[in-house]
């Protein structure tokens, strides 16, 4: 880390995490000068239990709460326009997104529409200038979070909106909401966050803040993901993974080293495969290449992955190899626990040949497209191509 080069780091959101964190919402909203919230969620994606828990947390606050729980996987700008009209008609003053993925993307674009006071949300495009901070926006991730909820990105109908102002002002992580129905959901979110933070952690241009965030997220995931996958009822582990996933959104918003992330996004946007699956399978070929380029960066991974004692006991020359071994053990443990529920190769993911062609067309347009193709080939992409 060369501090004389100068650096910037932005994390505009406050995190409230822990037991009964949701119950602090009325006070936190009052701090944002907001008293009439509109909850954006989905009965199918977030679940009625999570919605009930959130509404119950407002008990005794005297607030009137609007609940829009009809967001679907196929939501687009028409849905945003529909909610915008409800928001204005009901005179709501804060948006609360409950859930992950598309729910938060819809809420981000809605916040953009109501804050910019556009006449029609369908007019919004990635070219829309976002110069000033937007209205108060709260994100409450559930187990279905992808990590992008806390990031500066919002993807809707293939359009990618980017601005630090899209990031939430408050993130609430409550263990009642972060426990997943199945281990696969936790593993996907964990792998996505792990890949994103790992790439930022070994980046040559990382700054001290990024280092702190990425280190903490990596250690949280390494120490807790396997237990969270195996024992889904365990509050502590699932909350630790949820915290790491939230941190990964902040990390990805502050780095340009995001090859694995971009690869995951291409597959998600094209074939609707969770980015965590793709990031998980591409981790090893990517790290092998990094090792060949500069093994000292991989060596630094041993500290968050294996812990202080193991790092101190290992001579410098052996740290890179040990870090890779530890990573292999970690991912093997997750895959073994899930017994084939998460594909390890592109072939196992069952992506059709004609869709792979579309994916390669998009990847070829990326600045490092040739390299990304080699990574895909090594995880089974070549067999489909043939």
């Amino acid at each position, binding site marked *: 880390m060369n501090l004389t080069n100068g650096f910037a780091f932005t994390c505009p959101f406050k995190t*409230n995490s*822990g*037991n*009964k964190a949701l*119950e*602090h919402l*009325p*006070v936190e909203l*009052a701090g944002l000068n907001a008293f009439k919230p509109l909850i954006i969620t989905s009965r199918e994606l977030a679940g009625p239990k999570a919605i009930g828990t959130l*509404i119950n*947390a*407002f*008990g*005794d*606050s*005297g*607030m*009137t*709460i*609007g*609940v*829009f729980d*009809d967001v679907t996987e196929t939501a687009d700008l028409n849905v945003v326009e529909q909610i915008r009209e*409800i928001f204005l008609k*009901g005179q709501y003053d804060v948006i609360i997104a409950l859930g992950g993925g598309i729910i938060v993307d819809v809420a981000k674009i809605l916040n953009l529409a109501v804050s910019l006071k556009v006449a029609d949300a369908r007019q919004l495009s990635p070219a829309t200038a976002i110069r000033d901070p937007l209205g108060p926006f709260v994100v409450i991730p559930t187990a279905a979070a992808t990590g992008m909820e806390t990031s500066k990105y919002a993807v809707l109908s293939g359009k990618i909106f980017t601005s630090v102002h899209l990031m939430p002002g408050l993130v609430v992580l409550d263990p009642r909401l972060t426990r997943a129905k199945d281990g696969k959901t936790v593993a996907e979110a964990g792998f996505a966050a792990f890949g994103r933070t790992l790439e930022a952690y070994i980046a040559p241009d990382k700054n001290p803040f990024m280092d702190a965030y990425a280190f903490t997220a990596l250690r949280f995931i390494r120490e807790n993901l396997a237990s969270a996958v195996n024992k889904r009822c365990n509050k502590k582990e699932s909350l630790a993974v949820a915290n790491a996933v939230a941190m990964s959104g902040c990390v990805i918003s502050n780095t340009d080293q995001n090859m694995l992330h971009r690869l995951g996004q291409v597959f998600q946007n094209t074939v609707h495969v969770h980015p965590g699956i793709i990031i998980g399978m591409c981790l090893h070929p990517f790290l092998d290449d990094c090792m060949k380029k500069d093994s000292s960066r991989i060596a630094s991974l041993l500290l968050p992955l294996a812990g202080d004692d193991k790092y101190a006991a290992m001579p410098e020359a052996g740290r890179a190899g040990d870090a890779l071994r530890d990573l292999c053990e970690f991912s093997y443990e997750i895959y073994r626990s899930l017994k084939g529920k998460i594909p390890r190769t592109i072939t196992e993911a069952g992506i059709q040949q004609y869709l792979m062609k579309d994916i390669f067309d998009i990847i070829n347009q990326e600045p490092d497209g040739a390299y990304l193709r080699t990574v895909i080939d090594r995880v089974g992409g070549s067999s489909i191509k043939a």
Partner: protein
Amino acid sequence: MREIHAGGKPLKKAYVAIFLWFTGRAIQAAAKVDKEVQKEFAALPDDFTFALGCLPNGPWMVVGKEKGKVKYFGGNLKCRPVHLRLVIKSLDAAFLILSFQESTALATTRNRLMTDGEVPYALSVIRILDIVEVYLLPKLIASLAVKRYPSWWSFSRKLAGRVGVYTRTLLGF
């Protein structure tokens, strides 16, 4: 799309209100019975008043000094000027603290408590509350409520104090 008016939590609110009412009267009693509590109050300014309660709509407990005597003023925040407010962020957090699932120190670290006023005064009040809880509760429960249970207190101090505090609290003098 639906609009919901947040419901109440009457049972938790009733528990917290009764606890604060009893504790308020116990502080008034302890100020007459225990020398340490007397010393803490003596160090506070004349007419000093503090309130302990939870957001957004209470209940509250208001205790203060009037003509050199410590008095419990009930649950109305507007009854007199309050110099210090110890605020619990939500009714659920108040229930956690007052049902001894979390100690005051633990609740502070978990971001459940806010202080509106001078910190040294708040620390005095916390010390007074700890002493009162030791008098009111059996050792097993009091150990959960306070940071460190005063095992160095003599048996006679505990016994005489408990009798005095309970009698005065129940009779209200």
